[in-house]
């Protein structure tokens, strides 16, 4: 794996591009947004297919309900807004109007985590993985790069039921080749080091890989797991890592409560008890700043991962 860290793209951009392509392929796709189409990038679809694009205005609850109604009539709605307004503000609508009736709505939420940056705490969603994975019938996907995001936008079309797709604002390195294969519910193991495993998701995957490369030069062999599907979680890859490596570290741009770290703890506590070191946002709100500065401030960047592992190994 040779990553060019200079070539970057935000997964929200990949989403917008993939959605436009998907719209050409499938007539039953409709897209809804809540006055954020230029930020969520659904505008790319809107320009191409104005009749199948619905701007519901600043009304996320109504947007989710409208999508539910469309889904009862065999439409496949892709619904977008910022993660905080999707999973947070419209939680009850997602719960009662989408997940309980198991309607085929794809909630593609952009601007997750502290990497939203300057907008600050009100706009930095740190609880969405937690809120969404607890809902029955929901699939939760959190992609790490352009290639994976484009795959996911297409792949979730084939899932018969609600999906939460977590997308980021921050442009991050392209990790995978266009030919790389992914599978819902199957994490990706990068390297087979046995000193420690870093399980990451979304924007922290590139940080973990960077840390892995750096530690390698110091003689420490790390394995990274890109956990792009949070639910259903890949139990096997976690248990295997716990058996084969000395330490387990999770890192996420999300609260350490209820997110990836908690998911890994749940798997290991029931199957192969082992200490899990959770890196993420530690029961606090975010703050304004540049996205890269915030990754550093909240200790979820490659340097923080290196420090953590250096202490452990």
């Amino acid at each position, binding site marked *: 794996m040779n990553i060019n860290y200079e070539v970057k793209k935000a997964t929200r951009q990949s989403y917008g591009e993939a959605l436009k392509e998907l719209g050409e392929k499938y007539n039953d796709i409709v897209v809804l947004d809540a006055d954020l189409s230029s930020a969520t990038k659904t505008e790319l679809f809107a320009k191409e297919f104005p009749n199948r694009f619905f701007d519901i*205005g600043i009304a996320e609850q*109504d947007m989710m309900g409208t999508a*539910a*109604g469309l889904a009862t*009539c065999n439409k496949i709605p892709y619904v977008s807004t910022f993660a905080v307004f999707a999973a947070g503000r419209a939680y009850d609508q997602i719960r009662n109007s989408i997940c309980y009736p198991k309607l085929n709505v794809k909630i593609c939420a952009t601007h997750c985590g502290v990497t939203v940056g300057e907008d600050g705490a009100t706009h930095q969603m740190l609880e969405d993985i937690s809120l969404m994975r607890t809902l029955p019938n929901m699939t939760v996907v959190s992609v790490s790069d352009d290639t994976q995001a484009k795959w996911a936008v297409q792949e979730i079309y084939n899932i018969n039921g609600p999906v939460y797709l977590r997308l980021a604002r921050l442009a991050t390195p392209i990790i995978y080749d266009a030919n790389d294969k992914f599978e819902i519910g199957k994490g990706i193991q990068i390297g087979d080091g046995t000193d420690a495993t870093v399980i990451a998701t979304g924007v922290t995957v590139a940080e973990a890989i960077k840390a892995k490369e750096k530690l390698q030069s110091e003689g420490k062999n790390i394995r990274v797991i890109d956990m792009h599907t949070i639910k259903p979680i890949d139990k096997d890859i976690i248990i295997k890592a716990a058996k084969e490596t000395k330490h387990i570290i999770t890192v996420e741009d999300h609260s350490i409560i209820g997110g990836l770290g908690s998911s890994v703890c749940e798997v290991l506590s029931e199957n192969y008890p082992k200490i899990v070191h959770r890196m993420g946002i530690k029961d606090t709100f975010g703050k304004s700043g540049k996205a890269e500065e915030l990754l550093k401030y909240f200790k979820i960047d490659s340097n923080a991962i290196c420090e953590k592992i250096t202490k452990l190994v």
Partner: protein
Amino acid sequence: MTSEKELKEIANKIRIGVIEAVYNGKSGHPGGSLSIADILAVLYFNEMNIYPQDPKAENRDRFVLSKGHCSPALYSALALRGFFNYDELLKFRNIESNLQGHPDMNKVPGVDMTTGSLGQGLSAANGMAIAGKLDNKDYRVYAILGDGEIEEGQIWEAAMTSNKYKLDNLCVIVDNNNLQIDGTIEEVMSSYPIDEKFRSFGFEVININGNEISEILEAFDKAKKTKGKPTAIIARTIKGKGVSFMENQVGWHGKAPNEEQYKIAMKELGY
């Protein structure tokens, strides 16, 4: 066309089904179920194109009971219309029954949308109406909202959507029985003037007595002829209508009659 006389009888049968369901289930919401019985009689036995043998038919008219707690009335109408066996009503809210406390579209044939959390049904109805327009289908979508329910902000978000997309295939009915759990609508949180609100949101508004079959028939007819905008029928009703001791009594919002009350109610309904 079903005659007015027949529809009145059907409304009465729906009420009997409501009492049977709530009494046998020993829980449920009789008050608001009884207030909408006449509207449901007209919808399910005259107005809507529905197919009990093919409940998911693509060209069927859709119905959303946004005030989902009044499921006994919907279940009663569906059973009488032949969507499922009438005896199912007696198992309402039972652990072994498909008739959940609030309507579940995946468990009950004829239920077009799962509801229960108030304020969400109009959005879903909009989605159905938009889908109909996209597919050039001529089905219509009906949604019953409660006068207390419209205190939920999402209803007004949805009303803007109905207007924006000129959903003339959508007909909203507000069950204005003037009571909610904690008291009258005015006491708790006035949603009045309901008609002026919907009118200002771009709806064609029709005020009727919602317990009067002829007025309901006429209103639906007018709604169907309205083009370019959605219709809202503000139906003034009596909560608990048809059972004397339940009428206009806030206490009968969500409780089941005891055996003695059940017998009186059934007698009053001519069972």
